[in-house]
């Protein structure tokens, strides 16, 4: 395990700057998640660290060693691809043993066997070791792919949306397992996703990527409660943060220069009131909670509400702000 540092890393495809002078340092044993929409440069960042792409500018070092010019094999990284990148004609066992059978490693048979069986138990695929890779379900294939990375003890694990092709239930299970395994092994892990729940639940730190640049990096709590700008605020929170003009709702003194107010559920107070400033437009029932669609002036808001909140569509309510987030002209956050 080792720390990883990126300095001013830039990668250009055609006329698009996929990664734009990116600085990032990952501490030894840290679980960092890169979060961002499609095309933000997340995957390219991983591929650059792995050596599958060459940077146009900047430097990457792993454990203090400059990686310039080194092939993927020379970098001591493990990669989990978004697709099920198994060797289809090999069994689960052979797939897991594949990285250990590299002549560069000179590992004896008994050690390989012990390691494969240990990892197979870890990713819960030990009952299917003799199955061919093509005879597995999607979840099993991805567990083998993760296992194939885990059999090694590389400087860093790089994972590219490994759970995105799985169904919701399995995704939840594997999310927990992955975090547990990472803690057990104390491994350094850089994980890429566009799923904010994965980022919030697994990361020690989250890096928000936008257009190839690092918009903000910090603990999940920091990123959520203290976003540096509008873009970062919009990445987290379910339902999506409401972006409103400054004078729309009462309840807080608006700092000078405010252009937009960001209001999540916890920033909104709802009271039933016939003479209120807002009207309930629609209610989505989620079971234990409801999505409330609210209309204020010409604006629409979505917020979470308790299932037993006694309102119905068409009813008027009064809506007030409670310590919301303020953003200036350029989208930067202003102190409230």
């Amino acid at each position, binding site marked *: 395990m080792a720390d990883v540092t990126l300095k001013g890393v830039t990668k250009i495809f055609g006329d698009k700057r996929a990664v734009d002078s990116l600085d990032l340092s990952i501490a030894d044993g840290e679980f960092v998640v890169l979060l961002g929409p499609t095309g933000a440069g997340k995957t390219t960042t991983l591929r650059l660290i792995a050596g599958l792409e060459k940077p146009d500018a900047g430097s990457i070092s792993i454990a203090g060693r400059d990686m310039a010019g080194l092939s993927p094999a020379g970098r001591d990284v493990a990669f989990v691809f978004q697709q099920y*990148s198994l*060797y289809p*004609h090999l069994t689960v066992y052979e797939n897991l043993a594949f990285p250990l059978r*590299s002549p560069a490693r000179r590992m004896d048979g008994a050690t390989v066997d012990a390691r494969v069986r240990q990892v197979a138990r870890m990713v819960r695929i030990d009952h299917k070791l003799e199955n061919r890779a*093509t005879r597995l379900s999607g979840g099993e294939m991805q567990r083998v792919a993760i296992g*194939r990375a885990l059999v090694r003890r590389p400087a860093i694990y790089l994972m590219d949306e490994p759970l995105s092709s799985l169904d919701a239930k399995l995704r939840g299970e594997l999310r927990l397992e992955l975090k547990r395994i990472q803690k057990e092994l104390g491994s350094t892990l850089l994980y890429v996703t566009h799923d904010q729940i994965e980022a919030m639940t697994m990361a020690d730190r989250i890096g928000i990527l936008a257009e190839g640049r690092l918009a903000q990096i910090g603990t999940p709590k920091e990123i959520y409660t203290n976003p540096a700008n509008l873009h970062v605020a919009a990445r987290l929170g379910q339902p999506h943060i409401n972006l409103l003009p400054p004078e729309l709702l009462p309840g807080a003194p608006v700092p000078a220069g405010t252009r937009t107010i960001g209001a999540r559920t916890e920033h909104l107070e709802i009271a039933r009131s016939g003479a209120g400033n807002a009207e309930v437009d629609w209610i989505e029932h989620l079971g234990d909670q409801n999505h409330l669609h609210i209309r204020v002036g010409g604006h629409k808001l979505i917020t979470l509400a308790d299932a037993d909140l006694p309102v119905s569509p068409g009813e008027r309510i009064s809506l007030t702000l409670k310590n919301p987030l303020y953003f200036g002209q350029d989208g930067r956050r202003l102190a409230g």
Partner: protein
Amino acid sequence: MTTSHETFTDKAAQAVVRATPEPLAARVRGLSDRAIAWLFIAPTITLLLAINIFPLFWAIYLSFTNYRANRPNAVVQNVGLGNYSRVLNDPDIWASMQTTAHFVFWTIVLQTVIGFALAYLIDRKFRGHAFWTTLILIPMMLSPAVVGNFWRFLYEPQIGLFAYAVSFLSGIPTSEIRMLGDVRLAPWAIIIVDTWMWTPYVMLICLAGLRSIPDYIYEAAEVDRASNWRQFWSITIPMALPFIMLAVLFRGIENFKMFDMVNLLTGGGPGSTTEVASIALKREAFEAWATGRSSAFAIVLFVAVFGLANIYVKILNRVKQR
């Protein structure tokens, strides 16, 4: 809201009813749809029966008789398995089978190795690879008759380019390089032409196989520190194998009945060194006019090719399922 919705579906339904043609049977009096379907496939079935199925059964019948096509008025007698026992005990026929096996083996080995190597190079996607692909495919597009005559010129010891080039490179005098006249060289002359013409075809199938392997499998292997050699043997070959086997099957069946090239280049000579089964069969049928015996020979060949191809396809399916 609901009423307008219903009106809409009603209108849509009416439009569908108007647009759907009435069943054909209602228009073509006295014919059911099924009968019309049969009518449509009847020409094909008739042709298939007349050109493939009937001759097959007719040949099976003839193979048990002493029928001779040049004596249509002679009395045809049933000879039982006589023709078969003569065919299977005829050393010349066995020799022709051996010659065929020799051709099939070497053409497949050369075409598969060279074809796969070319496909592997083309798959590197270097500059101008599309141009080279087209260039390589040209021999395959030529007519066998043209190719045969063309190579006869090339093989000509006195004026041929082939003899000249070999002589230039090896120092052997051109008069020694009688590709079509020399007993040792003639079989290879045919193998070379067939390889020249059909390697592009094998390359095309192999290329399809190589292109079907996703890049990320190679990237995963690269990160896993697999050498190029190991990637080749544990990813490229196993994943392209079903395609390679398919190419071998096509070329194998095709070359089992190789006739045109041999007939044009050597006609089976010198002596009988290039007399493959199809040439021997032609001699039996249209030079010796032993129609019954040659039918038996044809059936033996048919059973052999059919049986081998079936076994091969079974293996191919097993490889594909892995």
